Structures are given as structure tokens and as C-alpha cells.
């Protein structure tokens, strides 16, 4: 008994040093040398200023300003409207949307009224934004990723079908040829992992930053 207690006490301290300190330090050291970009969260700079991470989705929206005052909701989060110059990410359950420091999913059940209301609201918002540029668009044609919130609340990707619909709006608002925008969409479409694992998707931040760099974009 006493021997077990001594061994356990020493053991837990020694093993904590090995697996709690040494192991993560070694992995961090190797990662920082071998894959510094990945290890530091795939940060993206524009003109030397950080604008986000390639892996973490963002909300491409502008804060509503009323009487010269930026509007906030009762929790102090900005009230925003989607910025039509940009491709829009999927709905997000974090507060505020795409809060990279507090990931969460919606936890909405499959048979809940609240789920149906949430999805309906997402469809209406999508139609309000896209239908003027896609006259034939109806709820039945909205891609599921545009109406359902993601697991992380930080999904960096949208489906190709979703991007193709939004391309019409972005091209019109930016006065770009549709072919140019579609070209960028396919350029930033990632394939499946190893050719079969998962789904292809379009990285929204990459795509939007590429649009900002595109000549002739009067945005």
C-alpha cells in the first residue's frame, strides 16, 4: 500500500513532466521549424496587416451606422448587414457570427420548430441577397450549406453550387465580367482530401481577397 502510494506520487509527477511539458514542447519546436505557416494558424496578411486565418471563416459584413453612430445589439455586438461586394460565408451559430475565439455549433435538433425557423430565416436572407441577381432562385434551389449553420461556426468553405449563385451578385456589384468571377471561384475551389475524403469547397476568405486584388474591380 505505502509502496504503491510512493510510486504513484512520484510517477504522476514524472509522467506529467514528460507528457505534459516535454512532449508538447518538442512537437511545437519541430512544427515551428518544419511547418511554421501551419503551426501559427495560416495567418494571412494584406499589405503587412493581419486580416485573418485561411482556415477560419469570417463574416463579410459591415456594421450598420445610424445617425453617425455604429449600431450594437443589447450584448454590445455590432449590428451588421452583409457586404454585397463579397461572397458570403455559411450561417454561423457563434456570437457574434464567426467569432474565432468562441467556436460553437447550433445544437438545433432535427425535429425542432426552432430549427425550422432558423433554416427558414437563413433561406429568406439568402434569397433577399441573391434573388435580384438570380431571378429563378427559389427556396428549393438554395444549396444546403447556405441554409444550415456549420459545426464549428467558423467553416471557411462554401459549396461550389453556393459560390456559383453568389458569383452573379458579386460580378454585378463589382462590375466585373461573370467569367472573371467564375474563374476565381474555380481557382479557389479545393478538391477532396486524397481525392476521395470529404467534399470540395470554396475558401471564402481567399476568394474575397483575390477579388479585392482583381484589376477593374471598382468596389
Amino acid at each position, binding site marked *: 500500500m505505502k509502496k504503491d*502510494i510512493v510510486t*504513484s506520487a512520484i510517477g504522476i509527477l514524472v509522467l506529467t513532466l514528460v507528457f505534459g511539458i516535454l512532449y508538447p514542447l518538442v512537437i*511545437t519546436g519541430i*512544427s515551428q521549424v518544419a511547418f511554421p505557416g501551419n503551426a501559427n494558424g495560416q495567418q494571412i496578411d494584406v499589405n503587412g496587416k493581419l486580416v485573418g486565418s485561411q482556415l477560419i471563416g469570417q463574416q463579410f*459584413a459591415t456594421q450598420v451606422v445610424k445617425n453617425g453612430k455604429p449600431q450594437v445589439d443589447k450584448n454590445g455586438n455590432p449590428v451588421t448587414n452583409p457586404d454585397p461586394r463579397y461572397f458570403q460565408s455559411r450561417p454561423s451559430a457563434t456570437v457574434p457570427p464567426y467569432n474565432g475565439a468562441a*467556436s460553437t*455549433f447550433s445544437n438545433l435538433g432535427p425535429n425542432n420548430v426552432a430549427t425550422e425557423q432558423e433554416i427558414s430565416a437563413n433561406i429568406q436572407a439568402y434569397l433577399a441577397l441573391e434573388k435580384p441577381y438570380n431571378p429563378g432562385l427559389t427556396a428549393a434551389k438554395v444549396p444546403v450549406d447556405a441554409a444550415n449553420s456549420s459545426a464549428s461556426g467558423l467553416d471557411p468553405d462554401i459549396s461550389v453550387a453556393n459560390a456559383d449563385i453568389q458569383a452573379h451578385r458579386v460580378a454585378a456589384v463589382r462590375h466585373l465580367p461573370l467569367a472573371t468571377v467564375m474563374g476565381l471561384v474555380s481557382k479557389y475551389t479545393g478538391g*477532396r482530401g486524397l481525392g*476521395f*475524403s470529404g467534399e470540395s469547397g470554396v475558401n471564402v476568405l481567399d476568394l474575397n481577397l483575390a477579388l479585392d486584388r482583381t484589376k477593374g474591380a471598382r468596389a
Partner: protein
Amino acid sequence: MTFAGWLTIVLFVVVLTALAIPLGRYMAAVYTGERTILDPLFNTPERLLYRILRVDPHREQDWKAYAKSLIIFSLAGWLLLYFILRTQTLWNWTGLNPEHFHSAPWNVTFNTTSSFLTNTNWQYYSGETTMSYFSQMAGLTVQNFLSAGVGIAVAVALIRGIVSRSGSSLGNFWHDLVRTVLWVLTPISFVIALVLVFGGATQNFSHYLSFNGPTGLANSIAMGPVASQEAIKLLGTNGGGFLNVNSAHPFENPTGFTNFVEMLTVLVIPAALVFMYGRMAGNRRQGYAIFATMMVMFVGAVCVAYIAEAHGSPAQHAAGLHTQVIAGSTGGNLEGKEQRFGIAGSALFDVVTTVTSCGAVNSALESFTGIGGAVPFANLSASEVIFGGVGTGLYSILLYVLLAVFIGGLMVGRTPEYLGKKIEGREIKLVTLALLITPLTALFSTALATASASGRASISSAAAGTPQGFSETFYAYLSQANNNGSAFAGYTGFIQPNAGSLGSHGITFADVLGGFTMMFARYAPILFALAVAGALAGKRVSPAGLGTMRTDNPTFVVLLIGVIILVGALTFFPALLLGPIVQGLTGHLY
């Protein structure tokens, strides 16, 4: 459903089997003291560890001594982890708490500590708003290694009991623990962590990023040493995410490639242990029979989940969405799922982590369809024997094997024997107790939580008063009792209005009931399993005769599957009807 989706599932099964067979051979060598390829690397650290720990690895322990070492070591781990988590701010000098988070309250910490000790990794906290890097590393990562090591040690001890030819020894706990963490867990998690960083995962000690996006909105992004913890969290079937949304977070699981690697990481040891068992039992066909049993049930679960999720949910259809596959969109129930994993990658991942005791998720289980969500329920109801947790899966299914042998023996009117050892009253009593404790704990805790107002306080507002609310509650205690740790995550034990613990509080009822549920349902079956091992160790082996029931052929596989389903169904079917099944049978919205 897509061709790529089904291809992913087929390739996963093939690659998993191809990896598990050689790993099983290697692990058999590790525990029987044969030479292995990694001996030159670990022989010296091993000897050094024994000297520091003051143990003689060759001192044989009977089941009581083995259990005593295990329990005392676990207790020491519990105390240190609770201390580290509660004194989070004391460690700010290390620089590993860049966001200056305070400790979570005592009740949440009680739950978290019990959770990580028992290999459950149920989380009533959100990683990136509660835990410092120091707590994650020195506290949680350490128990990810050690709780996995303890589980495997118990499985090895039970195997020794079954195959021993004389005496009452089950080996030595410290020897099994040290060899597991050094020879098995360390090298694999080392490689997997680096593969994950290569694939895009994060590994740093930085402050959270803070910036303005292209449209000028301010935002911040959580950072941290994610990959090192991710690797062992999966490999040790622990499952507690570094970040709140677990393996759905792009920093934990950035691509379809990492998703595939992560799924393999979860199942490779549980599958390899089965092949290891066949070798240690001196009859590899015994291992193949168990592997076949597990694989049949696993593939069945995957198919049901994939088909159900690809079909979409009643809420989607009521809102007017069309959920079939169209060009450029995967369709299906994408609520709470990531675009890069799609339906197949999400359904497969969540089946992989609920058949094992991993409990990591890459999508929101709560948002799964009724039938899709019934799959994780069913996996848990089978007491985590479809591969199961590292070690726990093997020792649990071996207990089921003994039960099946006993039932088979009754049916043919012969004294039941397993590998030449008579299975008698004492063993069957212990086996039954071991197998019934987990379901009973789950049902008892669920009943308490459902029937009391303090229990119902944990249900999410959208689900209150609906079958979904019952599903949340039932899943919470089923998951904790099975040491799984996945959740219908609307159910909460921690109210946290701000990042950090200031102004937040735990829900004592859920935290404490959950904590005791996890510990009771972990350590009681371990004690019974070791007792069974002790009872079998001393038995003489009689040669197989004409009337001996074979335990390595398809007939026995069918019998074993039957017994597992029968026990699970009889225990859980009424409760399952009230939650997921009723929702799966109707398009009605609540």
C-alpha cells in the same frame, strides 16, 4: 449519397485493417517481452523510469495487487489534475495562459477531472474560453496518455488471466503501464501530431490573434498547442477537444485528408488489440472472430448513419429545402456539419468515435436526424464493445465472449469452456456484474436527471419539453457512463456568459452526478474484469474435445453479435423509443 462517400467508407475499412494487423503483432511483442524495433529507443528510458518509480517490473501481481496499484495511481492522477485545474492562474508565470483565464468553478472542475481520469473526456467547459495552455498540456494531455495506458493495461491483464497456464499472476501494472505509454502511445502520437501540423493543424503558444477583416469587422482567433493534444486525444480514444467544437474546428481538423487520418488514429489501437489478443492467446482465429464481430456491427452502424444523414431532416424539409445531391452541393442534413467533411466524412467520423470510447466529434450529434442520431445511441448501448475504447473495448468484449460461451453452453447442454478453461458460476456472476453496471448506472442517472428540476435545468432552451430534451439528458448520462464523452451538446453543466470564468457558474447537479457516473462506471467494471482475470488465471486447461464449442467460427460470431444486441436492446430499448426513435419515425416538429 455519393460515390466518393461510399468509397471513403470502403477505403477506411481496408486501410484500418491493413494497419491494425501489423500493429497488433508489434503490441503482442511489447507485452510478451519479445524484441521489437523500438527497443533501442526506449529500453534506457524504461529502466530509468522503473528506477525513479522504485518498482521491480518483474514482481508478479495477483488481481488484487494489480487493482490496488491501478486504483492508487488513478487517485494520485485525480488529485494532481484537480489541483492543476483549480490553480490555473498560479501558473501564469509559465507564460502559458496568454488570455489570463481564471479557473472554472469547483463543480465544473470536479466533473472535468473525473472525466479525463476515466478516459471519458466529457466536457462541461469550452476549451478556448476556459482553459489555459498550461492546464491543457500539463493537466489534460497527461491524462489523455495515462487513462489510455490504464485501459490497455487492464485488457492485457485480462488476456494474461485467460491464457495463463498456472498460478494467479496477471503481470505487473507498472510494467504494463510504462510499456504502453512508451512503446505504443508515445511514438504513434508523435508521428500523428506532426502529420496533423503538416496537414494544417495549429501548434503554438501565441496570444489569440486579433485583427480587422477585409470589411473592417474586428475579430479574434483562438490559438494554442492544438496538434499535440489532438493526436493523443484521438489515439487514446479520449476525445476531449482542445477547442470547443472539437474536431469540427479547422485548427483541429483542417482538411478532408486530416479527417481521414484522424479517423484511422481513433480506431487503430482498438482494432490492433484484437489481433494482439489472437496472438497472445496462441490462436489467431480467436482474434479474427472478435474482429469480424466488431467489423460487422461497425459497418452496419456506418451505413445507417450515412443513409439517414444524406436523406436530410424534417426541419429542413419543412423549411422548403431540397436535400438531394446536386451539382456542386453534397445535399443532406448539413446542419451542424462542415462543408469540407460533407455528409459521409461527418457520419463516418461520428460513428468511429462513438463505437470507441473516443467521443470526439467533427459535427454536431444533436443536429443529426432521428435515425442518424440513434446510431451513436445504439453504439453506446452496446457498451462500447464495437472496437470500444483502447483496452476497455477488448476487455468488455472478452466479458461478452465469456457470456456468449456460457449461453451457448447452456443451449447445447455442455459445461461451458473458453480456450480450455471451464467457465463456472463465480466467473459468470462477475461477468454479469461487470456488464450490467454500466447500463444500470446510465439508466439510474438518466432517471434522476429527468425526474428532478435540477436535472432539467441543464436542457437547452430549444429542446425543453420535447423528445429532443429527453435525448439530450439520456445521451449525457449514457455517454458519461460509457466513458465516451460525446454529447448532444445542448445539455450543459456550465453557464459561462463571458470568456474566462468570471461571472460564470457550474450546475452542481449535472456536474456532480456526471462525475460520479463516470468514475463508478469506469472503475467498477475494471475491478470486476480484473477479478474475472484472477479467477481464470488459476484454472487448469483441459484439451479441446469433440463436444467443445468452437469460438473461432462464423457461428460463434453470430451468437456473439446476438448476445451483445440482446443485452443492449433489452436494457435500453424503452428509453431509446422516447428520444431518437420517436423523432426518426415522424416528420412532426416539436
